């Protein structure tokens, strides 16, 4: 099996393949539960649970408690739209670069904007 490219030019993604599948499911079906995601994607419950915890922690998905006839349910919805998520990924990369290599990044953008003007 060919390993999936993590970074594509058009579809920039810093998510793992499973994270990406879960995110695209949640974008189409907001307010899904862990068992719904697991059934629809045919992935084990524990894998979905671990991945969704990570997506919550990184702020892609929000968790909400619901009460459906005395049973408690936790539903997950996207925090960011697809476009916003893409912007967040790019900004996260740039933030990391700025933190570690500020001089290089600043001079790079300076050079690039100079190129555009000329």
């Amino acid at each position, binding site marked *: 099996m060919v390993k999936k490219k993590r970074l594509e030019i058009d579809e920039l993604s810093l998510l793992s393949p499973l994270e990406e599948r879960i995110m695209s499911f949640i974008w189409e079906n907001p307010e899904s*539960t*862990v068992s719904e995601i697991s059934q629809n994607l045919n992935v*084990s*419950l*524990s894998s*979905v*649970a*671990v991945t*969704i*915890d990570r997506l*919550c922690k990184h702020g892609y998905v929000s*968790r909400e*408690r619901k009460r459906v006839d*005395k*049973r*408690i*349910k*936790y539903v997950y919805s996207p925090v960011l739209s697809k476009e916003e998520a893409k912007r967040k990924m790019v900004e996260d990369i740039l933030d990391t670069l700025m933190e570690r290599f500020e001089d290089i990044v600043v001079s790079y953008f300076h050079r690039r904007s100079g190129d555009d003007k000329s």
Partner: protein
Amino acid sequence: MTNLDCIFACVMSGKYLSYLPPFVFLLSLSVVLLAKDHLKKVAGYWSMNMVLLLSTPYLHSIMKCDMLWVVKTYMMYLLFAIPLLVMAPFLYKLYLFKFHKIERFTAMEGYLRKVSGSDKSRMYIIEMALPKAFTLGRDVFITAGLLELMSERELKAVIAHEAFHIKQNRFPMIYAFRLLTFIPFQFERLADSYAEKIAGKESLIRARNKISRFYSIS
């Protein structure tokens, strides 16, 4: 003369009450093996371990052998391990509240307090999708995943299991002993049979099966 021979000789010499520690140890061991009541078993285990820990420096002081380095090394280990193990639950609680979203869960607190017999017990929900439940001191933590997975009766079985851990935690350092004296003890099995008595065998088994299925353990 090996260390064991030396310890044996010390005890048999009968000097300075040296019969006492082995006597209390064997008495506690028989309580662990023979007692029907779960908490009495835990109490036996506790006194068994305390005797071992307290008599180590005592035996060391009355021993007159060359090969004391094993006992010395063990005492050094205790000196470092005891503070760490005593602090561990508190540090873990700090970590939990700092890095996880946690809220009080008062709906089942009444039941927990009734079953554990401790009216200061609290229940918390950790916002985590994996089903887990554990006890720190006298507080029970369950995750959102567990709350969602279990029916009310199954949740009660889980809480009854954790309530046994609260009862057992009244004996200071009871959990640390496993790493101090290396004497094994089946806390989980006792907690399960306590939960079975309180909440019924059927709901306990159903709760356990649900968790196994979630983690794909068959």
